[in-house]
């Protein structure tokens, strides 16, 4: 049986308090890192654990930390990506609301590893409760000497601040987040230079997701092999899955990486609502292409989902049943990306606007026979040509919807109405 790691204290009402956290072994990872390891060793341990980023792209965390130049000179920064805007995702919120010290400890260890003295947690502004809870926890940790000067007598100084977002999905994209932190409109930056070399205030910067950072203390206390032994070799570890949509038991589930999508939906989340059948599942937030019911055997890890033409993304699993019109779902998803496009690059800004207009028309029963070709061409024009991955996500999702549910689109156009109404 898999024992929850990140959510192990979820049922304790006082899990957000320092005392409760300490009582269950909290801050021992930090102590161990500071007392027993050099920063390089910490990076080595995280590398050995093969922790991959939980923010969406699955980039190996230890490797990212390793890119930070060792030379003193410019200050280094750690940024925690708590913008969590990917529709279908709510895991980071729950960590921050329920067990925020995991994140603080993880950040302190990470900062030690990369040599950062300052960190910012970029939390979306809607998460008022998470902001308050994490803020209070930071205060507790500071009072107890887990943050601030000379932490645990190690000589390591580290301070963290919360930066409240103000409503823009693109802030989740790491370089747009850096611009936002610098007080600019959040728009992605050119890469290279990568943030690890030139990020916040042109200084070396590591950006990691909340869940990624929350894994770090556990790796330090329980060892890299313990972590590596959970789930598939190439993307190991415990994983938070966000279940929502037309499913019996929506909620946050912690299970190993690599669990099958079918098991997740059918067994853990209770399967479809009564009298319905599952039609499709979006496995990793709306940026991830939809997987039709036939494909539910796929394993929930970065590589398997990529091989299946989708992605693990934020592990926001959205279940869609047979009562739902896929054109409507696709339209709503593209409307989201269109609304959240930062506006920087042509294909995303203009292309998605065009796509939305066509989709709305089809959904409203005013589609034209060549609309599907047009949509496919637009996907082609957008995919791969946008400045950042937002536009890619939109185009990939639409392409998959057209591929798997082309007949539903065609039916709308043929009948000049939505067959689900």
């Amino acid at each position, binding site marked *: 049986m898999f024992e929850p790691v990140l959510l192990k204290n979820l049922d304790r009402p006082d899990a957000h308090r320092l005392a409760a956290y300490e009582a269950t072994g909290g801050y021992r990872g930090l102590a161990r890192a500071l007392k027993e390891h050099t920063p390089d060793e910490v990076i080595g341990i995280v590398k050995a654990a093969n922790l991959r980023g939980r923010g969406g792209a699955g980039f190996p965390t230890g490797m990212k930390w390793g890119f930070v130049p060792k030379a003193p000179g410019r*200050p280094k920064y750690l940024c925690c990506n708590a913008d*969590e*805007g*990917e*529709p*279908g*995702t*709510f895991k*980071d*919120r729950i960590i921050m609301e329920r067990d925020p010290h995991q994140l603080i400890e993880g950040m302190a260890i990470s900062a030690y590893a990369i040599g950062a003295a300052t960190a910012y947690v970029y939390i*979306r*502004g*809607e*998460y*008022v*409760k998470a902001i308050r809870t994490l803020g209070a926890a930071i205060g507790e940790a500071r009072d107890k000497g887990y943050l601030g000067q000379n932490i645990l007598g190690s000589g390591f100084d580290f301070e963290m*601040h919360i*930066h*409240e*977002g*103000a*409503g*823009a*999905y693109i802030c989740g994209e790491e370089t747009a987040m850096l611009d*936002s*932190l*610098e*007080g*600019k*409109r*959040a728009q992605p930056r050119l890469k290279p230079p990568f943030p690890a070399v030139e990020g916040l*205030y042109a200084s070396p910067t590591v950006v990691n997701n909340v869940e990624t950072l929350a894994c770090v203390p556990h790796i330090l206390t329980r060892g890299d092999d313990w972590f590596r032994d959970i789930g598939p070799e190439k993307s190991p570890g415990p994983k938070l899955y*966000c*279940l*929502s*949509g*037309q499913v019996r038991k*929506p*909620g*946050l589930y912690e299970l190993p990486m690599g669990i099958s999508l079918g098991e997740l939906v059918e067994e853990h989340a209770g399967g479809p609502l009564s009298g319905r059948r599952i039609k499709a599942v*979006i496995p990793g937030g*709306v940026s991830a292409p939809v997987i039709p019911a036939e494909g539910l055997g796929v394993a929930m890890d970065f590589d398997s989902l990529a091989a299946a033409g989708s992605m693990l993304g934020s592990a*926001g699993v*959205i*279940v*869609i049943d047979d009562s*739902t019109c896929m054109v*409507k*779902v696709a339209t*709503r*998803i593209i409307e*989201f990306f269109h*609304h*959240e496009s930062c506006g920087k690059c042509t294909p995303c800004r203009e292309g998605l606007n065009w796509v939305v207009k066509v989709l709305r028309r089809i959904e409203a029963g005013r589609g034209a026979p060549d609309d599907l070709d047009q949509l496919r061409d637009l996907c082609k024009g957008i995919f791969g040509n946008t400045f950042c991955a937002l536009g890619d996500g939109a185009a990939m999702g639409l392409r998959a919807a057209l591929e798997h549910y082309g007949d539903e689109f065609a039916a709308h156009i043929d009948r000049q109405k939505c067959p689900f109404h």
Partner: protein
Amino acid sequence: MSPPSDMRAEIEAAAARYPDRRSAIMPALLIAQRLHGHLPGQVLEEVADILGVERIWVYELATFYTLFHTEPVGRYHLQLCDNVSCMLCGSEALLAHIETVLGIGKGETTADGLFTLSTVECLGACEMAPVMQVGDDYHGALDIARLDALLTRLRAEAGAAAGATEMAGE
């Protein structure tokens, strides 16, 4: 109008967290909006002056981010999520219901200034879809009955508050 002194102090405290004052524009706008309700041009100018940054930078941010309002909003801002998970769980019906009950459409404010209605993108609480944020609070697993109860409660709360200020005024 000179800025309320605590606004300046709060903004200065926020600015101290960053090596560059431009970074404090966002926190400053959040502070200003909390104190002023929304962000008219004059408030933007004050924020720019306090931080000593370009006005256009402040204006850019005030319009880029959806949580900032350059126009007034009602006392309760009903922000109904209509993204996929909430949609799959019935947010459309809720929207239609609010529109009928309050007699306003998306982006509008009731004549009494009590409610402004918006639909918003995913609130990050899909496990309790459909969700609506009102002020700082999330209200999840909504259905028509719970929605009605919520609106009634908000109305009562506003009435009580109004009564309280009236009494205080007497």
